[in-house]
């Protein structure tokens, strides 16, 4: 009997392993299809086939050969050249309004909702998994409920995404028919795959959501998690396909210089900027999704009727915020990779972005980043109120605030200003004699590194504020932390000052040791802190729900800023094509081929952000309608480790 039982266990283990292998395999699928080698193999096969056809069939009509604009290889022409449009009713039918603005709104709204419904299942999957492997039953249940709460929000958003997708397609067909026809002639096979994947994703999502209760135990729970994996695989591939259309417009491939399709859709999909955008969008979606769920939690916190609800939604907001900020950290690196590939693709495009027409938009981005960091710190400090013992660290907050504000101001100082000739004369040049010194790269690099390092410090204080370390080496650990952060601050500031005295080409190299200081604080500092907190004596539980109302507005601020930043960066990515529908292949000859002023763009972005949030608040409100009777678990007095330290 015992043996049989053990056998059963082994079978279960075996099945679990099979499930894990399937999950990992499925997760790797999008990676496999994005390998550049595959594209070449496809292409070689196509050429071989063409060659074979030429040898075998003598009666084959003469085929026109074109050279791929990106890959540089030859292929058989299978489509018409990119249409040369002109400003008329056939190419650009219109209402009495700028068609580009209509497309702008439709695309942005679809993207906002799309990003949200793609991101949420990813962290639902992670949280469900954490819940499954957590040994503490009450915590496991708590994670599971949280995962369910998350997916519930995305269900309504999912149908809105689909509706907006339809709106977008119709808008393209109505306002830009010639362009749309050209795109569909190239991408129609991928578009069919897209539709099928969408069906698969919808089906999986509904089974996943409605099957939550029925599949909550044993092996079925693993099956349930596997569905989450497939849901994400479908979603990610779906996103990658849509990305390929946008990146084809930026860096076309699979067509010749006249825009004639060369018969291999895979090459068109796998254009130069496809993968960099894929990575950037995936990470960006996570940040955005985290921000929205956090805002939802803040909304529920503020409208909560009792302490239990407040505790639950405070915790939910914290976890979502943590996810958002965790994915925010690698995002600049993905951005850097994307920008590097833009430069590699066309130098001119890179210059337009960083030093030309669109450069001021990156100043706005800098302001947004500064605001994000200030708000994150503020939220963490407010969060300390939940814990007894935090008083020990309160006294440092005023110094950190001072440092952050000074650095923020330096970070914001423009290099040159818009001035009248008289003002220019009075100031004695383009740069102010005093303030101008802070508008240069050396000062800004120093400032932003100090901002990030201070944020890391805030986070470490947050982690330890209700614990007293009991490890024997605690004193040395504290000394090490002091030295680590002190050293980093000194190094960053010293290099920032030193940068004024050396030529620009040498100065560029200084940012490396500065970033190393910052990253050392992040990784080494967090590691030392975590080790010190092992077996630490708690000074009291985390009293979820005991946090100020202001903190929830900080979450709103973060969510709005994420949304705004996404609108801004999306605008930059799209407008860098300038007067091309498809860069260097199909010219935009509509009356709207010009690039708007940044003020106009910012107004549009604000409009899109607010439109999105107004509709989303409506979705949130819908969400509360169905949950009136749900009993929220009592969590306020349960001692739970801060999720930040547990995953």
């Amino acid at each position, binding site marked *: 009997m015992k043996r049989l039982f053990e056998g059963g266990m082994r079978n279960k283990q075996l099945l679990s392993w099979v499930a894990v292998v399937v999950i990992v395999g499925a997760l790797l699928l999008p990676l496999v299809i994005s390998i550049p080698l595959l594209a070449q193999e496809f292409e070689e096969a196509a050429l071989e086939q063409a060659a074979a056809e030429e040898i075998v069939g003598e009666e084959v009509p003469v085929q026109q050969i074109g050279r791929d604009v990106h890959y*540089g290889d030859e292929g058989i022409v299978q489509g018409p050249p990119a249409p040369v449009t002109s400003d008329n009713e056939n190419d650009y039918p219109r209402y009495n309004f*700028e068609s580009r603005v209509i497309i702008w709104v439709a695309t942005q709204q679809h993207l906002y909702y799309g990003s949200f419904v793609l991101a949420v299942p990813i962290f639902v999957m992670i949280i469900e998994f954490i819940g499954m492997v957590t040994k503490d039953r009450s915590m496991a249940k708590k994670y599971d409920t949280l995962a369910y709460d998350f997916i519930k929000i995305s269900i309504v958003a999912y149908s809105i995404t689909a509706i907006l997708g339809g709106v977008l397609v119709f808008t393209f067909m109505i306002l830009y028919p010639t362009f749309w026809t050209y795109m569909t002639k190239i991408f129609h096979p991928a578009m069919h795959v897209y539709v099928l994947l969408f069906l698969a994703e919808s089906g999986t999502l509904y089974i996943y959501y409605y099957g939550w209760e029925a599949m909550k135990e044993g092996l079925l729970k693993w099956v349930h998690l596997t569905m989450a994996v497939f849901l994400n695989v479908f979603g990610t591939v779906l996103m990658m396909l849509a990305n390929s259309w946008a990146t084809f417009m930026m860096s076309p491939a699979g067509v010749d210089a006249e825009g004639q399709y060369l018969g291999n859709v895979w090459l068109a999909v796998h254009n*130069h900027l496809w993968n960099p955008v894929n990575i950037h969008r995936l990470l960006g979606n996570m940040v955005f999704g985290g921000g929205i769920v956090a*805002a939802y939690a*803040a*909304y529920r916190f*503020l*409208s909560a009727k009792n302490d239990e609800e407040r505790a639950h939604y405070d915790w939910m907001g914290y976890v979502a915020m943590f996810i958002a900020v965790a994915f925010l950290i690698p995002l600049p690196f993905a951005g850097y990779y994307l920008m590097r590939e833009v*430069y*590699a*693709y*066309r*130098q*001119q495009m*890179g*210059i337009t972005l960083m030093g030309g*027409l669109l450069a*001021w938009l990156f*100043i*706005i981005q800098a*302001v*947004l980043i500064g605001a994000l960091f200030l708000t994150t710190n503020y939220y963490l400090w407010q969060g300390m109120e939940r814990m007894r013992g935090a008083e020990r660290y309160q006294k440092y907050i005023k110094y950190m605030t001072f440092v952050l504000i000074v650095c923020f101001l330096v970070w914001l100082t423009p290099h*040159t200003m*818009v*001035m009248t000739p008289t003002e*220019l004369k009075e100031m004695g*040049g*383009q740069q102010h004699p005093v303030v101008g010194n802070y508008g240069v790269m050396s000062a800004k690099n120093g400032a932003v590194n100090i901002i990030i390092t201070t944020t890391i410090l805030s986070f470490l204080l947050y982690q330890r504020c209700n614990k007293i370390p009991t490890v024997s080496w605690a004193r040395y650990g504290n000394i090490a932390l002091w030295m680590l952060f002190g050293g980093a601050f000194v190094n960053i500031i010293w290099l920032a000052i030193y940068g004024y005295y050396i030529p620009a080409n040498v100065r560029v190299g200084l940012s490396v040791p500065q970033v190393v200081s910052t990253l050392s604080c992040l990784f080494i500092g967090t590691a030392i802190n975590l080790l010190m907190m092992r077996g630490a004596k708690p000074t009291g539980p985390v009293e979820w729900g005991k946090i100020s109302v202001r903190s929830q*507005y900080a979450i*709103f*601020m973060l*969510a*709005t*800023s994420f949304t*705004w930043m996404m609108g801004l960066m999306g605008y930059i990515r799209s407008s860098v094509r*300038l*007067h091309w529908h498809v860069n260097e292949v199909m010219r*935009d000859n509509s009356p709207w*081929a*010009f*690039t*708007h*002023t*940044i*003020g*106009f*763009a*910012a*107004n549009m*972005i*604000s409009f899109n*952000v*607010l439109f999105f*949030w*107004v509709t989303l*608040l409506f979705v*949130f*409100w819908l969400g509360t309608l169905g949950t009136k009777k749900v009993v929220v678990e009592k969590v306020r007095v349960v001692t739970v480790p801060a999720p930040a330290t547990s995953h």
Partner: protein
Amino acid sequence: MDLLKNKPLLFKLWIGLLGAILVLLALNNYRVNFSGNSRLLPVSLGLFTAATFMLGIYFQKVRVVMHGAAFMIVVAAAFAGFANWLPQTIGEPPALEESVEDITSLSPQELADLGEKLTFGKGKCSLCHVFGSSEHGERAPNMFGLAARANEIVQLDSYKNRDTIQTVAYDGSGIAENAVEYMAESHACPNCYVSPGYGKRGTNDRESPMPAIHKPPLSLTIDEMVAIDTWMYVREGLDAPPIDDMRLAYEKFIPEDERPQASAGGEEAGSGGENPLLTTGNEPLPDLFEKAQCTICHIIPGIPGADDADFGPELYVKTSAPKRMKDKGYTGAASSVQEYILESIMDPNLYVVPDFDEDLMPDDFGTTLNAKTLFRIINYISQLEEGKTPPDYEKM
């Protein structure tokens, strides 16, 4: 009647109406200023904020939604307001290029239209200059009001007693005396007078970063420059000076042998029926590079007088060519340094070195340089290696 007695309800009705009015005002502001003065659009956001916040105070059931929305509007308004405070520039698409026929047959408006196309197209003026009344030129002066301003500039002491690296267009040309001549002089000799604050970095406004636009690579003809000047007047509602006056102004600052022709070679090769080839191939190497126009844009290590141009990359080709041929952006078929140089001369856009403009290098050197010239250029350049002394040009 009940409604009138129910004071709280009546009050809420008023508040609701006030909120609705604010929202309508905000929407109207959007409608009126959407395509016009877009800097006023954040006002709408302010009105929306006031309306939602007020409704949030008096309508308790939607309090959280309203306050959350009001807060978000404030944040979005702040970002939009900041962006509207920054310098505003519209990026116009380049015009489709057209060749100039006989410009005297064109009306002033047609000539101005042509000038506008050239400004944003072949002339590449908009790479550095801006043209809107409220725009700020980062790299070069704003061209708005130039026609009026030019008359004042030529009267300035700093203009008459100039201290620049080149004070006259050529010996005996003299300086400009009126606006028309000033424009011609600025185009033909950008170094003759540098607008304060727009000099090459580190030269204290003694040297201009602008190239002479009648020379390669831009090579605008006098008639094309006349068209551009005409646009400067017409777009501001001014009467353009007669074409002949403008032509004369350019002829004052551009010596006869430097005037580019509308079509290269052929029977129109104006000045004395010279050979359309730029070189004979027998010149000493420094002269050969200069005549072949390489030194206008490139630094050529080891060649005297070829050490300060920066429109094209420095020609350490033995070091750079192998790397470039492996670059993803390389679309040529060369397999050696020599082949690479030949290819770059004949078809410059097969690979554009990062940081340099596309289409800047003329693509007609294949027809203006003879075989001997090409051979000698390639022979010398292919031996240039970074960190090593260049070969002795006198022996080559």
